[in-house]
């Protein structure tokens, strides 16, 4: 059921950019209650194949033609990030709301321009922070809101990436792949996810940033594939809480995981297992504490095992469940029924932190004497 509710007209959605992630957008948009009326790609081959495979009624290779003929209520922008701003601007000018895949834009300046374009058009723009709406993250946020873990004092997050995985393999086989033109390379395409979860836990202010980048892999191409950082460490300091966010191409298993430390308790969250375990500790004396602590951990893990098994039996473990949830909330906001699920200030904060992270990482590679000293962006 769509967030827009029963009886509300189904939003008309078009997807622009028919690469890998477009499949998920079409599928989850339908699950969120939309009619996918068109797909568009500047390559006719790509647009046609998406329409044929995904049973979309119309395909276009011209964006303006798509906007005028298909007249979508919402346009999903799933092109490479360098074209997010121009495509979103055109869609907004054509009267559509826009959902823009992560990273929202190449940098903060472009994100600001997108905000201006949305305001002028009187339409909404939503950053594709879909993992912030994963069921387990929503559980975490409920726990925080209820005060169960007290005030958040620190968050650890790790975002893994497999350079031999479905995306990494393509990027590593092509020195001209768009991801190599992003300021932060492959990390730039991934760090939005943990940041979109972590930053709201640090409060409303922009935290200060310390970042360092490493390249652990062997250089073997002599081109852009040798240049990007495959390990990045970020320390964020808000007014009352800190966070460390790690991007790693080498840590195994590849995962997105968080540990949230509060004044009352801490919780460990795995987005891959979709589990959340409170670490309860123990008040038992001496050596008994160690056994009791381990027992509490095991009980928490056992509960999560049963929950996931139940979800499996009830067919509730869709991979892109967070995307479906975010789409549904955004469609409801576009229809005027609810507030935007990702306030644009949050998207701007994420873009600002990304800018600073990659600025500092690049500065480390600059000649001696020119390196930036870090600090708040």
């Amino acid at each position, binding site marked *: 059921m769509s967030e827009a509710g029963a009886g509300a007209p189904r939003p008309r959605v078009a997807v622009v950019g028919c690469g890998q992630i477009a*499949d998920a957008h079409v599928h989850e948009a339908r699950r969120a209650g939309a009619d996918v009326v068109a797909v568009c790609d500047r390559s006719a*081959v790509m647009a046609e194949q998406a329409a044929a*495979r995904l049973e979309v009624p119309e395909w276009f290779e011209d964006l303006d033609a798509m906007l005028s003929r298909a007249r979508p209520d919402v346009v999903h922008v799933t092109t490479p990030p360098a074209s997010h701003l121009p495509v979103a601007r055109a869609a907004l000018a054509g009267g559509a709301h826009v959902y823009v895949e992560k990273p929202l834009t190449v940098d903060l300046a472009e994100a600001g321009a997108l905000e201006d374009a949305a305001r002028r058009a009187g339409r909404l723009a939503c950053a594709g922070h879909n993992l912030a709406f994963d069921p387990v993250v929503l559980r975490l946020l409920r726990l925080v809101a209820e005060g169960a873990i007290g005030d958040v004092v620190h968050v650890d997050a790790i975002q893994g990436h497999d350079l031999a995985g479905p995306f990494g393999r393509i990027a590593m086989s092509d020195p001209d792949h768009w991801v190599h033109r992003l300021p932060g390379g492959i990390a730039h395409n991934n760090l939005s996810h943990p940041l979109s979860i972590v930053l709201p836990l640090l409060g409303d202010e922009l935290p200060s940033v310390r970042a360092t980048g490493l390249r652990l892999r062997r250089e073997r191409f002599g081109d852009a594939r040798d240049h990007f950082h495959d390990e990045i460490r970020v320390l964020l300091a808000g007014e009352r809480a800190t966070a460390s966010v790690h991007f790693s191409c080498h840590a195994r298993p590849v995962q997105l995981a968080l540990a949230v430390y509060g004044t009352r308790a801490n919780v460990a969250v795995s987005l891959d297992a979709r589990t959340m375990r409170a670490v309860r500790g123990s008040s038992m004396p001496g050596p008994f504490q160690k056994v009791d602590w381990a027992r509490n951990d095991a009980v928490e893990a056992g509960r999560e095992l049963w929950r996931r098994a139940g979800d499996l039996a009830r067919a509730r473990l869709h991979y892109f469940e967070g995307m479906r949830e975010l789409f549904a909330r955004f469609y409801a906001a576009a229809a005027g029924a609810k507030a935007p699920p990702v306030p644009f200030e949050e998207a701007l904060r994420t873009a600002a932190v990304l800018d600073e992270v990659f600025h500092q990482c690049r500065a480390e590679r600059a000649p001696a004497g020119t390196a930036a000293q870090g600090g708040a962006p």
Partner: protein
Amino acid sequence: MIAVTGATGFLGQEIVRSALRRGLAPVRCLVRPGTTPARLRAAGLDSPGVEVVPCRLEDAARVASALAGVEIVYHAAAAKAGSPAALVASTVVASEALYRAAVEAQVGRLVLVSSFATIEVAPLRRGAMVDERAPLEPHPERRDAYAFAKHRQEVLAWRFSEERGLPLAVVRPGIVFGPGQEILGTRIGLRLFGLFLHLGGRNAVPLTWVENCADAVVLAGTAPGALGEAVHVVDDELPTSAELLRRHRREVAPLRVVPLPYPLLRTLSRLNAWYSARTDGHLPAVFTPYKVDSLWRAQRYSNARAKALLGWSPRVPMREALDRTFAALARGGSASPRPVPAPAHAGGAGAAARAEASA
């Protein structure tokens, strides 16, 4: 001058060897920019008579330049694995640019290495002969991602042939096998949870040894009768799925095999499709009745047209090909690369090609 795309690939490097053996030098190999010298050496592309041109097929200007003076283009580049969109992007979008450049460069012929996956076999009855009379697949979206991309690649080639005058010959190999390749492919079965689900039963497996297949591809560039035609390439004396599995267990590694007979597989596929539809894709529809009919219904395979049109016959007999394959698998790796033959000079490329064509 001939050009080969995908020349560092499993079949592509054998096409280069076969072409040199037939005196079709020089061979210009279009390889992806950034391909390492080690990869080129491993593919035997550091040999006399071979020119390596780093070139993205999507780069129209570079491809046009690479095709200057080329008489025959052998197009073997294609992605094997990835998401459906990624396969189309790397296989079909790249092919489109190559077809366009080939038309503009007025090449004498473009030979597309297509696939059995592009043809419609689901409606064929059990035991039917699969040959070139089978139409192109009308529902490639119901097959797997590889089949879809290869279908679009071939359809686009025929469109360029009809609308733009691209001189086209299409070769559709069955399953290309050789040392270093896993032989227990999808038509034989799937590895799942530590088990091997045997799906192929006693079906004939449409194998073609990589060297034999490369010979057929090269001949399709020179045989006069191949222009405007599609030919299927499988070897003689095709083994059955059960024979291959038995030999693998005996000579390579023991497997815990669970046989899934065709009727049971079809029932499970209906269940899989029903569950996937009912749960909004909670589990993907990996098995559907259409896929099962396309891949695991027992059929026979003809290579008569390839023999007649190309003057081709398998150079390496099936028995020897299987011996070499299983010996390499038992060693746990690939056979050592064979040297690239020196280019034949007597009579030049044209004479050699004509001799092959009339053989």
